[in-house]
């Protein structure tokens, strides 16, 4: 059984306590317009094309589908022709063309995770992220279980949108949850992520009864969810949870936008979504005043 993994990043310091190795799984049920990891949205394989690494050697021209065209020293990648055969990827000398994900077994993943055992100490370990790890629910749970068995602490960063039948298993093999709350407003949630937030909140409340530690991760997107009503609802959610250790505010940034380039050949950055530093501080103070522990 193989898991679609886009990246395994060692030495992560903000994906749960201690030094962690974060495993990014491919596929997500949401389509947040501000997504920082667009390559993890689709569950199916994709190809990155990094124009800045391309040396125009034309080795990829051998594509049987004619998906790589060269005109006037320009390289056009006609993605719609591509059948993902991988020929161009192996031919490209500079890794300007790369598959987004790799199919890996639990053992292969764990082998990499274990490389940093010496640095995990009491708190560090493995974090599953994505995408939404629970888009591959059985596989994700197997991986978590195997990590626990190997004595490695586990964290899961989830958008919360998955079938509740997995909740018990998930909680029993997860030490820390990083639970994303994109928006507390149902309509906006639907508009900007493609789904409403019912399931997410229901899962959160259900998980809270059995999970040992939850941190709420809340993205701040200027002019979308940077308002008092949202913060008030957030604070109420926070207060109704028993295992929540705090709220982490994640201001929208544009760093993820280069990956849109790699995938779709166009930018997706929206500078107007970046919240002002003063507003971030305001949000922090507001939530703190409402009795939340803001991390």
């Amino acid at each position, binding site marked *: 059984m193989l898991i679609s993994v886009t990246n395994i990043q060692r030495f992560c310091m903000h994906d749960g306590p*201690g030094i962690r190795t974060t495993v990014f799984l491919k596929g997500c049920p949401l389509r947040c317009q501000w997504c920082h990891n667009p390559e993890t949205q689709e569950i199916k394989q994709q190809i990155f094309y990094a124009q800045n690494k391309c040396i125009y050697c034309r080795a990829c021209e051998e594509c049987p589908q004619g998906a790589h065209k060269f005109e006037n020293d320009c390289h056009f990648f006609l993605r719609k022709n591509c059948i993902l055969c991988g020929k161009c990827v192996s031919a490209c000398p500079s890794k300007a063309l790369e598959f987004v994900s790799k199919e890996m077994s639990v053992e292969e993943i764990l082998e990499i995770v274990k490389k940093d055992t010496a640095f995990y100490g009491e708190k560090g370990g493995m974090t599953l992220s994505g995408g939404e790890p629970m888009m591959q629910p059985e596989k994700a749970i197997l991986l978590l279980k195997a990590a626990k068995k190997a004595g490695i602490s586990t964290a899961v960063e989830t958008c919360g949108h998955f079938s509740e039948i997995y909740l018990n298993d998930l909680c029993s093999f997860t030490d820390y949850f990083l639970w994303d709350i994109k928006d507390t407003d149902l309509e906006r949630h639907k508009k900007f992520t493609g789904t409403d937030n019912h399931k997410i909140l229901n899962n959160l409340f259900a998980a809270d009864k059995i999970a040992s530690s939850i941190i709420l991760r809340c993205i701040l997107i200027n002019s979308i969810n940077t308002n008092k009503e949202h913060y008030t609802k957030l604070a109420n959610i926070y207060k109704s949870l028993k295992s929540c250790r705090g709220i982490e505010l994640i201001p929208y940034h544009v760093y993820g936008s280069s990956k849109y380039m790699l995938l779709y050949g166009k930018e997706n950055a929206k500078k107007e979504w970046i919240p002002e530093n003063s507003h971030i501080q305001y949000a922090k103070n507001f939530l703190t005043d409402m009795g939340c522990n803001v991390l």
Partner: protein
Amino acid sequence: MEFEFYSASDTKRPIRLCDSTRKFSYESLNHKYGKDTRKNPAVSLDLDNIKNIDSFSDLEKYNAGILVIAKNAPLRVCPNELICGAATLGNAINHMLPVEYHGKPLFESYSGISHLTPNYTEILKIGYRGLREKIKLSLGKNISQKQKLFLQSCLHCVDCFEIWHKRYLNKLQNMPGYENQYKNLCVVPEYPATCFYEAVQSLWFTFAFMRLTGNWPGIGRIDVILGEYLKNDLEKGLLTISQAREILAHFFIKGCEWICGGDYGSGDAQHYQNIVLSGIDSEGNDVTNEVTFLVLDIVEELGISDFPITVRINKNTDKKLLRRIAQVIRHGGGVIAVYNEDIVIKALTDFGYPLSEARNFANDGCWEVQIPGKTNFSYIPFDSLAILQKNTLNNYLIDTDIKSFKELYGKYIHNLSEELDLIYKKFVEPLFISGDNSEWKEMFPCTIVSLFEHDCIERGLSYREGGPVYNIISPHIGGISDVANSLYAIKKLVFDEKKLSFKDFMKVLYDNWEGNEPLRQYVLSSYNYYGNDNDEVDYIAADILSDFSDICSKYNSITPIKFPSGVSTFGRQIEWAPNRIATPSGRKKGEILSGNFSPTPGTDKEGATAIIKSYCKADLSKQVTGAALDIGLLPYNVRGEDGLDAIISLISGFVTLGGYFMQIDISDPKILHDAQLHPENYPTLSVRVSGWNARFVTLNREWQNMIIEKSAGKL
């Protein structure tokens, strides 16, 4: 008044010291006293009316020079300073004896002594009166004429020390506000120190006198040297901990009196003023005490990076100390590095040092390990990549074919061994009278530092002529990561994947990759080089180091000089770059490659933990004088409590895995770029250069760019 000290972190530096101390620090870091020191480069023998200098022996010239310094060097007492004495002659900053004769340097080619950590404990315990007794005792023995002249020079230098000391006493006697300073100097350094304040004054005064005469000594285990005095004072209620902090802070601030700004190539702070903290004593007990924490408090608050601090860590190091270190490291500047003392002590005892000596190790000013107060140390750096390129691969003008990786590796080790033989013949053999491997040749005099090194006085021999207990010349291999990467690339491309023949590949390299960009891109992007926790290449590096150390060990029993191996570049990757040609790992001619035992910039893709793992695969206990690893982190990586945990975990992992020495610098390439454009906004921003730190704005462009590239690699 507010004095800001630059921090890379958004956590503010704490304020514990009083305003006048903070002001003193701010002014010193902003060149006030360094500029003052530069004003007087040297004193002149003409002042002493010396005429017939040509008839003087070197030792006589030296003696006359020290005397004229003692009598005439400007005295400086800074406003509100708690400890007195200053190294006020500008040429000393340049490592010269600051004495002139008829407008020319007294010695044209003389350089002072550095790379040593003297024995300060002795002067604190017996004062210079005690030293004098020791010298007289040796003079009374049955000794040669040469020994007699040396010991007489020792007596003379103690007298000069006294002259300089008494001039300060005279000056302070009637200065209002300096009553305590005067009182202390009535005791030390002439007599033993009786309390912490006197001990700090004595330590500083001795250090300053050595510096005044053109030497750059280190400090060493300051918590061992001063710990007992502070403990006693605190127990007796003579001093509070915050008073002690103020006093010790002035020691660190005064240590900045040579900072003069401007463009000095490798920075403005490379005077090897090492500090070593914590660790075990010769009996194996933990020495960590209040002084350890005071030092951390002081550098945390003032951001003083001029004393490169290394903390000795072991598996049992207290969590509280680790946390304090992490807090200080987080402010950036690379102020604090760590030794894994378990490995260091093993390296030293395996090499043959007695355990009790090994346990007391300090370093030479950067991080090359030595036994303090007993060692004459120097190191010989060499470029191991040049050996591969020029000797093994004949500048890629290869006419013989190499058939296997094993053959290639064997040839390289053979060439390495030839190079070491040359180094030994060039640097060690000439120190002895030919035909005799134990009789030292006469060297330039260096009596001042000899006073503070065992067993110079006992043996009647100077520091440079076999006086110290241990005499070390350590060959230091540089460019090792690039040799491993080069061998690995050849192995993969030619012998494993057989993409092209050995000869064809040499042709590609000879052409500096010209016309072979796809192949170059392939080599750059397809292989995981040293620093990514890839066994295949990491063990090539490990094997070379192990073989290197075995070769060196053959030279240990020929002369009294020992020849232990070590790994370093100390920034020499910059000066080596123009002579290096294309590398099989995809680099073109002239690129600046790896420093110390760190990965080549741009090749480390897996982050700090992978770098540490790659580094630790080598048996570092075979690198007796050390092997340094540089880790750069972004301020973002280490923010908040998680960030502190991360630094602690990195250090703990480093110890568990068998690391030797690691320096962690926190810097943001964006900020460094801005500092290049607007140096005026960043006067106190300091960075780790190699074994030392410097204000970033005082580095020249090449060095600045290297630091930026190093820090940008982690993005």
